[in-house]
């Protein structure tokens, strides 16, 4: 059974946000809702200034604090390591959201789900599928596009990245691309002191 993980190559990320758009399209996410984000850090002082782009998404932690905090059993880990949310069980208490050190959880309110991107109040016909997929009030997050992975595809954000800054694969396979990158370029997880053992790593 694979253990899915991801590596972000900070040298390659150009901050185009194609990953963000692909994710929102794939998951039919409402306004102000992001499963993945690209943060910007400005370093140095004029004239020696540079910008660094830092992608972020759910880290699908081995020791997921969100799973431990969830009182209803809605958050669980699949056998392949993907941390999932069963919306039917979610009560929307946000205990998972305050437990996540990376602020990668989001609550889908009724207002968000029924608000159209295109003004006019009513949802367009192509926006209505989000009402079917998501339950208002639940707290959810990135699931590595589990539906695509189950079909042998890569997550939408990985496929959309023009510079191949997102590398997805089986962390238990020594020949996989993420595994090689982590070892060759000293990949680091985000906030290791939080002891969540993320399955997402950064290389620079």
């Amino acid at each position, binding site marked *: 059974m694979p253990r899915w993980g991801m590596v972000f190559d*900070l040298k390659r990320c150009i901050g185009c946000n194609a990953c963000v758009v692909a994710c929102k399209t794939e998951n039919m996410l409402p306004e102000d809702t992001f499963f993945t*984000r*690209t*943060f*910007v*850090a*400005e*370093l140095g002082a004029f004239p020696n200034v540079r910008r*660094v782009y*830092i992608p*972020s998404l759910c880290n699908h932690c081995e020791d997921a*604090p969100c799973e*431990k*905090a*969830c*009182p*209803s*059993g*809605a958050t669980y880990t699949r056998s392949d390591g993907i941390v999932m949310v069963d919306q039917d*069980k*979610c*009560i*929307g*208490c*946000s*205990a998972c*959201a*305050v*437990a*996540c*050190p*990376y*602020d990668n*959880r989001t*609550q*889908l*309110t009724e207002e968000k789900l029924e608000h159209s991107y295109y003004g006019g109040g009513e949802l367009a016909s192509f926006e209505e599928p989000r009402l079917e997929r998501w*339950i*208002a*009030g*639940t*707290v959810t997050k990135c699931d590595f596009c589990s539906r695509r992975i189950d079909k042998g595809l890569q997550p939408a954000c990985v496929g959309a990245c023009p510079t191949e800054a997102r590398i997805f694969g089986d962390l238990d396979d020594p020949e996989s691309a993420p595994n090689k990158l982590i070892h060759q370029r000293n990949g*680091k997880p*985000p*906030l290791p*002191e*939080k*002891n*969540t053992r993320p399955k997402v790593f*950064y290389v*620079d």
Partner: protein
Amino acid sequence: MKEFDIAGDTFRLGYRFQRHWDVSMASAFFCGELGAGLYLASLAFNSVWGLAVGLAIVGIGKSFFHLTHMGVPRKSWRAIIRPDRSWVSRGLIAIIGFCGTGILYTADLAMGRMLPPTTSLLLLAVSAVCAAVIMVYQGLAMASSSAISLWTIGMMPFIGVIYGLTSGVIIMLARADYLDLETARILYETAVVALIVDLLTIAATLNSAFHSSSGGRVSVEQLTKYRYAKWFYGITIGLGILVPLLALAVGGRNFYADLVAIGGVLTGFYSLRVLVLKVGVYEPLLPLQFV
């Protein structure tokens, strides 16, 4: 080395305020600790009305605010499913146990102790233990994850206990005229000591948080120097502790001074609950030296 700023909702790398647990959650926490604290104080001073009011605050007030916070209230019963790992589930079990045994015990007390003594004692013990759990589980739920540094400070669960008991004792002052002189004297002295303990506990907690991590330091600075400082010093400390101390010291056993103390403590306690949630921050994703 450049420090990170508060990034808010932007996509800049920096500290981000948590906004998932808001005023409704703070109100639920406040009602839980206040109601349980009043119940325990009422047990100590043998006050039936205090027991009833404490039960009502927890059973009605805390439940109401939790339900308004829930994204899917109709499924709230599911919150009880994972007591093996979730403090939310454990707390809900304590609330149900508290309300059940507390109502029976209070009714028995009000009707002149009609239950057998052993049963009455069992109800008293279980309700008291459940009340203690209610006061402490909220802080433990906040501290169970390392996400928000301020909330993981060891003293945080005990702030609920200490403030809950202080509030319970302070509210008892409203009925001090009905107590004998010696009991009333103990009540007033307990109230003064409790307020001083509250002040020291807050100071110790903030000092510990400031030195714990960068996120803890940012939270404490927001509370004591920047965005929320005027509310913290004005309401939590001034109105919540100093004014009641003054009212108790100067007013003596004066009903109106007691009311000022009660109002001040409850307002200060509520403001503390709101502010602790407001200043919780998520730390920046990567340390600056990595980038």
